[in-house]
């Protein structure tokens, strides 16, 4: 699948994964990979800027801990993030329904 198809939807996917449980970057990307069945071919490093953007927007908050002598940053959903997730999920459902309606029987 073309990476640009993911544009605009990555935030929704990340918020959705983080909403289930706080997780660090690798675990979030691993979940994204597993659930999409490797459909999204984008460099893993490009997910981190999206996580930072969500944090700058106040939708997620991060904490650091030490694991195997390394610093690990874990992301958790905030109250604003929960609202944003609900809104974007609703937007996606409307968008998906509109696309399906246009494509009709071809879907």
């Amino acid at each position, binding site marked *: 699948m073309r*990476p640009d198809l993911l544009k605009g939807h990555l935030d929704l996917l990340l918020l959705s994964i983080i909403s289930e449980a706080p997780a*660090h*970057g*690798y675990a979030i*990307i*691993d979940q*994204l*990979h*597993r659930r*999409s069945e*490797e459909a*999204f*071919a*984008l*460099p*893993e*490093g*490009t997910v*981190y*800027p*999206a996580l*930072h*953007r969500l944090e*700058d927007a106040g939708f997620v908050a991060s904490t650091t801990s030490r*694991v*195997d002598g*390394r*610093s*690990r*940053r874990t992301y958790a959903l905030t109250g604003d993030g929960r609202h944003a997730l609900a809104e974007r999920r609703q937007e996606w459902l409307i968008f998906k329904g509109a696309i399906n309606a246009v494509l009709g029987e071809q879907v």
Partner: protein
Amino acid sequence: MTEAPGPIDSYLDQLLAALRCEPSRIRRILAEAEDHLREAARARIDAGAEPMEAEREAVAAFGPPALVGARFRATRTQSAGGLLLGVGFELAMLATVALLAIGLSGGILFAFGELKGTRFVVRDESFTVVVPFGPCAFMTLPGEQPPPGHGAGCTPEYQQQLADGARTDELTRDALLRAVAGAAGGLMAVGLLLSRRGIAPAGVSRVTPALGAAGFTVLALILLFAAYDAHTLGGYGREGAGMWLSGGLAALAGAAVCTAWLARAVRVSVPRVPGAFALPR
């Protein structure tokens, strides 16, 4: 003996060079990237991969450092001041390329003068011969007749000797001025290299080099045609072709630098890592 850095360490060094933000943010990004890469490599080792191969695969899946750095830059919220600073930085880069090109043209000019003679680079109409005393006093151009009462001893040979000296002075002055511009460009380049880490990009990184490449190319074409005209058609007195040619060649070099800059800007904005999500299960 110092141990050679592994793929992950090398990658982190490259990522560090690609990041343009404040030091605390850089530390955070590098720590997060290292945690990801070490864990990704460990997962691959657990799946049966050799350690070095596991690190190489983890690095490849993470994406090119330039691309990751560009994405971090693109996600930063910039203030109006930060945006202006970024635009100013890119324009300063363009000015640096221009100054260095002028310096290069001075070097070429000097080399032409040494190799092909001063007539190749300085045409007669481009300078004046000021002789305050002597047999050719008051002469201002080679071949000009001296005023009545001052002509004794002002032979054509002596006039030519004066003109050659003035031509050499003109060449030296031009080459020196261009060298000064080149030195200023070198200082600006050092300053930009030292300051670039704290300055975020303006988001116009493809526009500035594109403008530079187009501008330098047009300038090169004009100057090279002028050199051809001077040398072949006699439009500029059949002399001084080297003056135009030195500028044209330096402008071509400037166009090449801006084109490489543009190619890099385009490359880092397009992800080209198919299947990069191949994390081991």
